[in-house]
């Protein structure tokens, strides 16, 4: 079991690193997906270990949520790209205080 959890933690860390280091919105987006799936893996691992289905159910909820997120997020990215022909998040700094 600890291997599964280690893998999950590793995936999460990679995702986090991706979110913080990438500038392209698409890549940040993919990193977020990675983190979500790392969480899914942890859920399923704990569910198997404890022998009930709540973790599995939670993983399904997260997948559904991720699908919805992709739909909305990609839509935003496409709109941003159309408006400024770039998806670099550093350019989107108009709300700077």
């Amino acid at each position: 079991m600890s291997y599964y959890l280690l893998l999950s933690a590793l995936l999460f860390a990679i995702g986090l690193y991706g979110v913080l280091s990438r500038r392209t919105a698409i890549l940040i987006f993919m990193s977020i997906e990675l983190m979500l799936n790392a969480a899914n893996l942890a859920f399923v691992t704990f569910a198997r270990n404890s022998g009930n289905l709540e973790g599995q159910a939670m993983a399904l909820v997260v997948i559904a949520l991720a699908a919805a997120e992709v739909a909305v997020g990609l839509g935003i990215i496409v709109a941003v790209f159309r408006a400024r022909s770039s998806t670099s998040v550093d350019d989107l700094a108009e709300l700077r205080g």
Partner: protein
Amino acid sequence: MLLLLILLLPLLGFVFLGFFGRQLREPLPGVIASALTGLSFLLVVAAVLSGGASWEIKDWLPGIPFSLVLDHLSGYMGLVVTGIGFLIHVYAIGYMHGDEGFSRFFAYLNFFIAMMMTLVLAGSYPVMFIGWEGVGLASFLLIGFWYTEKVNADSARKAFITNRIGDLGFLLGMALLYSLFGTLSIGELREAMESSTVLPLALGTAGLLLFVGAVGKSAQVPLMVWLPDAMAGPTPVSALIHAATMVTAGVYLIARSSFLYANLQDVSYVIAVIGLVTAAYGALSALGQWDIKKIVAYSTISQLGYMFLAVGVGAYWIALFHVMTHAFYKALLFMASGSVIHALGGEQDVRKMGGLKKYLPRTHLHGLAGALSLAGFPLLAGFWSKDAIITATLTYPFGGTGFYIAGLAVAFLTAVYAMRWYALVFLGEYRGSGKPHESPPVMTLPNDVLAVGAIFAGFLALPEPLWNFIEPYLAPALAHVETHHMSLGVEWGLIALSAVVALVGLYLGYLAFNRWTLPAWYRTFQSWSANAFYVDRVYNALIVNPLKELAFIFALFDSFLDTAFVALAGLSAWLGERLARVQAGYVRVYGALMVLGLVAVLVWGVLR
């Protein structure tokens, strides 16, 4: 309903002229205002002839009805107010000719009549207070009518603020009466007073507080300083508000409350003394004035003092008799002065007048009638009423010989300054420049009527054994006061004495201000008198300036507080600006901060 109409007609004029007066061509606003006041006068006449009326809204305030009562007293006063008011409205059409604020002036005048009638017809003190404040407001607006001059605006504020002191007294007096009797209706109070078990001390305090209100409104010592300055307003205003009607409201208040004062010997004594002091002060100050209107203004203060002397000794009907005769001859004097000012193109200094008898024959007759009536020339209106007051100090219960002698001395001074006014304006050689011209008929005709009143009004109430219409007419509305009768010989002897005093005063005045060169001691007195004995300066030093200093200290403290608050606001604005830097606009920074926060929470959770 009739009573309500008496108030509403002039009020309607005020609203109408206030909104639409500017669109009307010149004489029209004056005609409308005069017609409404005249109509109001006719309604009062009708109501008086029908024997009286009353009208009320129950539960206007919880437990206090809004009541109007026209009995003999308020009917009598109402006739004076609307009657004289009508004449002065007509006169003002001529006097205000060509003024920019023509319609505004008449709107204010109508407002004044409405408020004065509220005061007069009030059946309870709160209603009277509405009128009381309303006439104060009208007075303020009209003194400052030519508000672009700072002096006028200052005078208006002075009048308003000085009156405020008196109004506080009225208000406190009302509150005390309410807490003692649980009602403020004058009729109910009168009944309650008869079976009263209330402490005389409490009653006396209430009476004294109401009297403070009267002192303010009627310009008695020590609150008399506003009235001479009130002459900054147009002359019809001086005639209507500051001579004939509003300033007599104090006398009316005391007479209305006579059931209260008739039982209060100490308070009545105070009233009489203050009245006498005021009469003397007014007369002495009138002697030295150089402004044609201020002479008349100080004489008004003096005559009001006589009225308070009368109510103080318990002679309520005589005070009201004097209110009426005074309204006639003082309005006449003011409007004759107005005619003179009008003729000389705004000149008010009597040193630049003189000899106007030749140029203004009609106005000269008016001035003569007014001055002689004021001086107490035998058989004129002022003679009968003033003599009645002076005699009353001997026959009425709260009087005394001291009052009699002092009253007679002031009557002598009155004759002197009345003659001085007449001599400086109309006799001798013309000392000004320019050609005076007589006023138009719209100004002289009302004065004719007033002159008839100033000469003959005294015959309404003659001493015994002749006829007297006013005393029996007013008796039901006033408290009954026991008088001790003098023998007819003594009575008529005293009347002859006061006639002689008036004649000697007139003759001395004639000699002094037309012939003699005046001695040095008189010149000293003159300069004191011209400055009204420096009362204004004393008040400024003792009250006004310390208050100004106090206000300055408060203002300092206030500006300190202001600065502190502004600094506080500046601090948070500065902090906000610093914090805003955090919002760099980089998603990665937000993300990193989020992660840091998460890590912090985790670490805290694990270590705990």
